[in-house]
């Protein structure tokens, strides 16, 4: 059976008293707990997505020696709320020749695809909504809904810019899924499982146990993953689908108001998700640097903080890259994917496989120190 | 001593890694990564040396071996077993061979960094050289024919690339193709033999083959009317013939000198050609079982003598060396054939050392004076003292002068051949083996000293030309030859030191364990006759139960069941067996005879080329010389006779048959007959077929079409509906 947040909580005594509170109806209790955690995680991620826009503007201002948003709240931190209010109150414009159904559907699909990935994101060993044994595979699969939504958004708007943006976006997302998936496959090979719990358990302890430092191939795999993830989330320098100078705003050119907000929110949350996945797969996830034999709820909160720190550091790097590198051309984009990243990823996969066979899956550090479990 | 894969694998893997890095990033490395190649071979050498030390000086039993296997793939299901194991098999012979290959390859690599400096193909050369070495090391490490065959083919490819490395020269391209194609002939047979063995015993591992021989699994099997063992033995020996350039398939080796000289050294000395001998030695029990050892001996004798005669008239230094390689390979094959197992293997080793040294010396000469035609050389002793010294040592060794290694190994083979031909009661016709062998030994001494005298002694013609014709002449090889000043040679660790190191190993006592060689006079309490104790033909009976136990556990046997304390006690050839006595006599006679013959050859060469009191061969026997210069017309035979006469003749015959006979009688005759039939059938056609058959059918088809057109609508969906309907009606008619 898959580990869930409920089955984690069930090992504590207060769970029984909670059960008594619900009159012994375990199903209802499960539902309620899931509900609470879902709401908490979605709310948190939505806030992170909102704060992402603020961080983007503030960091870019910092890089460009400006001040950035500074009016709403202390240091302008409430700027995203003001933006949200502005978006909600805007008129919801529907282009005359748009395909109505698909036009409404596309932003929803984007949000669904992104929020569905949160179900397996391992915030901590216990507070993972569902630690299913095909976790990372599920995450890759369900996040491809975003590609569909990008395409549909571009198509439904019935505008040339949107169409070009949508096509670019879809082809880019499909193409970059390949190196990303293959480099993740190398990690599942090392961990011997696709569940985040399994992967996380393999990286327990000091940073030398992290998969990024496991062997030279996984070290390269991290960068392949990171570059591919940047492209999959349409972030700079791969933000061709929404290249302002060429396509106005790409696939969401015709969107206004909260529908545009959905797209923007989905994008920022997806960036957070891929950063989280990168942290969980390569940077040790939510593991404490020490091996504690006991487990209490506050410890889980510490783990959440560790995970968030790692993910947000990567998030910072993503924003930093955006304001540092110029945009690529379309042919460069495709040649990077097919001529460089994919062969490197395949090379990494084979290399990892050989490493596992040759050294019984021991990491470089274990080989050097002669230890190992 | 527990060996893990980690302490064996680097022998093979280090050069492979150097190959990969040089192949992909070589151009970006300083000096095209040649230092990396040298370093990798040195790593192999160090690991090989460790194994060698443990096997030769350690307290292992003499029949100790390391055998580690892993499952390559396993497609077994149910009772059908199809699994292929790969593995490492190291016994004493392999340990010695590994040290030899890696050591010589290391020196050759070191020399190449000097030789190939500023060469246009420097980078490419150092891509293939480590791959070549690694393939040879892998071949030696292999525990089965299949992986051996893979490395065998990799070597074939590498030799192709190294021979044709100057691919802008047409001759080089032709030579590389020739080498590749000729060895392919043998490889086909080798593959055939492997498949045959697999069919019978379901494995191609050496251990399994030995145990199958001991258990008699080959007995009673027949293929094409000959016994199965003979068939497989011949097939495998044909493969060895191709690789070791034995008599009918020898044509590629002399042409292989088109490549850079260090490459030739690696091909001729340490790696490629010895692979065939190695295979014959590994499969020796099969050769004995198949009863083809006489065939091996005869082939070897023909090669040894024939190549030696050709070498007498060659003028190119490298050609002389190439033919001498052929000749020496013939001696190794004689050794395999007459049952002189350890002498044959010793000759592989000794020959590797002196032939590598000879080639490197030739390379040193060529690189120094840019000339390889001997008549244009002479008097180089003054300029190239170190090269002269090392080359002289090797020449003494190959000529079979006492105290040198060639004497030790070759004369043991000759002694055994003498016994085999005259005293063992074989077919008297086989006396040709020792006769040709001794004759070839004399010729060897002659032509090697001819080469030495022409190159290093006499007057320096180039120097003379220098002043006579001035600068700027170009010779046939395109080098700026005559205008080149000959620099005085200095001691340099890349150019001469490898030669000198190799020259040290031309002394006989490294191999014989005593000074004189043939078991006389033990010095310094050396381990007497270590070679004879360590290397012996595989005793197949010992492998029967070993084949049945899991290979992983073989390693943990008691290693000290028979320690090598017998080094000091076992000596000489005398034994209670009267045959041993005869053998000893044969050896003594053979040694004496070969010393006499060798000195005779040296004397003739001295008289001919230093004193000039005997006219050179060419003026005495012009006819024979022409034949020899044409290399017995083998190339001519293959190209002009076999292909042009045979194949083209067949073509012409077929063309004549086609045009003259078939066309005139069959086709034209048929035409006449047809005309008659045509008139008859025309009437029949018009009346019966056309009117009644065709038109009538048309009408009928039209009628049917009215119905069928509905079904044949050309629409896929309609067909689909029909499909579903037919399926449904079929199911409804079933009574279930």
């Amino acid at each position, binding site marked *: 059976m898959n580990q869930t947040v409920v089955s984690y909580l069930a090992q504590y005594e207060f769970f029984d008293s909670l059960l008594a509170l619900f009159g012994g109806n375990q199903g209802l209790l499960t539902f309620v707990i899931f509900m609470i955690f879902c709401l908490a995680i979605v709310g948190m991620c939505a806030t992170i997505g909102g704060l992402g826009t603020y961080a983007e503007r503030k960091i870019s201002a910092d890089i460009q020696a400006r001040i950035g948003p500074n009016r709403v709240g202390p240091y302008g931190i409430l700027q995203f709320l003001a933006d949200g209010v502005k978006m909600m109150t805007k008129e919801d414009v529907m282009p005359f020749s748009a395909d109505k159904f698909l036009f409404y559907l596309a932003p929803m699909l984007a949000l669904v695809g992104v929020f569905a990935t949160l179900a397996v994101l391992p915030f901590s060993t216990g507070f993972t909504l569902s630690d299913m044994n095909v976790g990372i595979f599920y995450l890759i699969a369900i996040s491809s809904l975003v590609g569909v939504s990008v395409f549909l958004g571009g198509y439904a708007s019935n505008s040339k810019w949107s169409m070009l943006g949508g096509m670019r976006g879809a082809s880019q997302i499909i193409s970059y899924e390949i190196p990303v998936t293959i480099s993740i496959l190398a990690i599942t090979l090392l961990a011997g499982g696709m569940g985040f719990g399994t992967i996380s358990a393999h990286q327990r302890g000091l940073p030398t146990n992290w998969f990024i430092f496991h062997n030279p191939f996984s070290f390269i795999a991290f960068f392949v993953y990171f570059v591919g993830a940047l492209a999959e989330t349409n972030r700079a320098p791969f933000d061709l689908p929404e290249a302002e100078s060429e396509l106005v705003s790409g696939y969401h050119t015709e969107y206004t108001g909260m529908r545009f907000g959905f797209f923007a929110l989905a994008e920022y949350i997806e960036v957070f998700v891929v950063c989280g996945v990168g942290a969980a797969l390569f940077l040790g996830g939510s593991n404490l640097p020490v091996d504690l034999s006991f487990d209490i709820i506050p410890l889980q909160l510490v783990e959440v903080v560790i995970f968030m720190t790692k993910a947000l550091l990567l998030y910072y790097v993503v924003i930093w890259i955006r304001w540092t590198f110029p945009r690529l051309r379309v042919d460069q984009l495709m040649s990077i994917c097919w001529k460089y990243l994919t062969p490197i990823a395949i090379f990494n996969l084979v290399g990892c496989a050989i490493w596992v066979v040759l050294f019984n899956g021991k990491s470089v550090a274990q080989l050097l120190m002669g230890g190992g479990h | 001593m527990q060996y893990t894969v980690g302490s064996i694998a680097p022998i093979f893997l280090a050069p492979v890694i150097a190959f990969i890095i040089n192949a992909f990033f070589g151009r970006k490395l300083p000096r095209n990564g040649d230092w990396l190649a040298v370093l990798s071979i040195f790593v192999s050498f160090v690991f090989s040396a460790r194994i060698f030390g443990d096997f030769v000086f350690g307290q292992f039993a003499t029949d100790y071996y390391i055998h580690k296997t892993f499952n390559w793939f396993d497609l077994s299901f149910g009772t059908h077993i199809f699994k292929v194991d790969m593995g490492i098999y190291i016994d004493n012979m392999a340990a010695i061979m590994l040290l030899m290959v890696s050591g010589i390859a290391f020196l050759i690599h070191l020399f190449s960094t000097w030789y190939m400096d500023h060469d246009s193909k420097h980078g490419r050369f150092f891509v293939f050289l480590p791959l070549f070495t690694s393939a040879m090391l892998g071949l030696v490490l292999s525990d089965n024919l299949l992986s051996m065959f893979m490395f065998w083919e990799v070597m074939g490819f590498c030799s192709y690339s190294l021979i044709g490395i100057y691919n802008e020269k047409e001759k080089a391209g032709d030579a590389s193709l020739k080498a590749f194609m000729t060895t392919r002939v043998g490889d086909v047979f080798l593959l055939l033999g492997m498949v045959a063995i697999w069919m019978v015993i379901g494995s191609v591992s050496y251990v399994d083959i030995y145990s199958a021989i001991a258990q008699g699994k080959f007995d009673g099997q027949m293929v094409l009317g000959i016994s199965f063992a003979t068939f497989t033995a011949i097939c495998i020996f044909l493969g060895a013939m191709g690789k070791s350039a034995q008599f009918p398939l020898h044509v590629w080796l002399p042409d292989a000198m088109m490549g850079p000289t260090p490459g030739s050294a690696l091909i001729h000395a340490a790696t490629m050609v010895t692979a065939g001998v190695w295979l014959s030695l590994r499969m020796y029990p099969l050769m004995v079982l198949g009863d083809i050892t006489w065939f091996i001996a005869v082939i070897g004798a023909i090669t040894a003598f024939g190549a030696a005669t050709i070498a007498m008239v060659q003028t190119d230094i490298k050609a002389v060396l190439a033919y001498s390689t052929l000749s020496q390979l013939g001696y190794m094959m004689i050794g395999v054939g007459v049952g002189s197992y350890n002498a044959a293997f010793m000759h592989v080793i000794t020959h590797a050392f002196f032939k590598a040294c000879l080639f490197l010396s030739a390379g040193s000469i060529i690189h120094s004076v840019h000339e390889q035609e001997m008549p244009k050389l002479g008097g180089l002793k003054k300029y190239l003292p170190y090269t002269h010294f090392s080359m002289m040592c090797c020449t003494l060794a190959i000529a079979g002068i006492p105290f040198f290694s060639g004497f030790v190994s070759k004369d043991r083979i000759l002694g055994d051949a003498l016994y085999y031909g005259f005293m063992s009661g074989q077919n008297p016709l086989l006396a040709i083996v020792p006769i040709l062998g001794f004759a070839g030994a004399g010729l060897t001494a002659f032509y090697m000293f001819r080469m030495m005298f022409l190159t290093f002694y006499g007057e320096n013609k180039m120097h003379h030309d220098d002043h006579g014709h001035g600068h700027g002449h170009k010779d046939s090889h395109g080098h700026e030859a005559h205008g080149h000043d000959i620099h005085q040679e200095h001691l340099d660790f890349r150019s001469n030191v490898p030669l000198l190191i190799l020259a040290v190993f031309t002394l006989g006592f490294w191999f014989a364990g005593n000074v004189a060689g043939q078991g006389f006079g033990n010095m310094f309490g050396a381990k007497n006759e270590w070679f004879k104790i360590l290397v012996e033909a595989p005793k197949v009976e010992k492998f029967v139960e070993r084949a049945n136990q899991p290979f992983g556990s073989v390693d943990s046997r008691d290693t000290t069941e028979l320690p090598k304390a017998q080094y000091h006690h076992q000596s000489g050839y005398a034994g209670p067996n009267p045959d041993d006595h005869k053998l000893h006599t044969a050896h003594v006679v053979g040694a004496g005879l070969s010393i006499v013959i060798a000195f005779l050859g040296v004397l003739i060469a001295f008289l001919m080329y230093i004193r000039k009191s005997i006219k050179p061969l060419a003026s005495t026997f012009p006819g024979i010389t022409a034949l020899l210069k044409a290399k017995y017309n083998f190339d001519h035979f293959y190209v002009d006779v076999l292909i042009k006469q045979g194949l083209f003749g067949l073509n012409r015959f077929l063309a004549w048959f086609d045009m003259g006979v078939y066309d005139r009688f069959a086709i034209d005759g048929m035409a006449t007959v047809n005309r008659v039939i045509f008139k008859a059938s025309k009437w029949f056609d018009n009346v019966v077929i056309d009117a009644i058959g065709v038109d009538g059918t048309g009408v009928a088809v039209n009628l049917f079409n009215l119905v069928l057109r509905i079904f044949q*609508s*050309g*629409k*896929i*969906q309609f067909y*689909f*509906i029909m499909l*579903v309907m037919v399926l449904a009606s079929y199911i409804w008619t079933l009574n279930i």
Partner: protein
Amino acid sequence: MISLTSYLLISLFLFVLGLVVMIARKNIVAILLGIELILNAAALNFVAYSRYVTNNLDGHVFSLFIIVVAAAEAAVGLAIVIRFFQIKESTHIDEATQLRN
């Protein structure tokens, strides 16, 4: 409790829907959609039988292979459609009757 029959009914219904799409639609892409539905119905049956009837996972493996074949079929099929469209400027199935006469 969910029974085998419910899965079989769903898959039957899906199959019939695919059949309807394949027969009623005249657009080649739409027919490919119908084929996907039919393949999925078959794959669903495999997995359902694997859980309720047999004790091994061979059904899962078979449905994986069905997915693989479906992917290959979609790729080649759509390539043919696009090529067809380049030649005929139409994706109507009734245009593809050149072999008839």
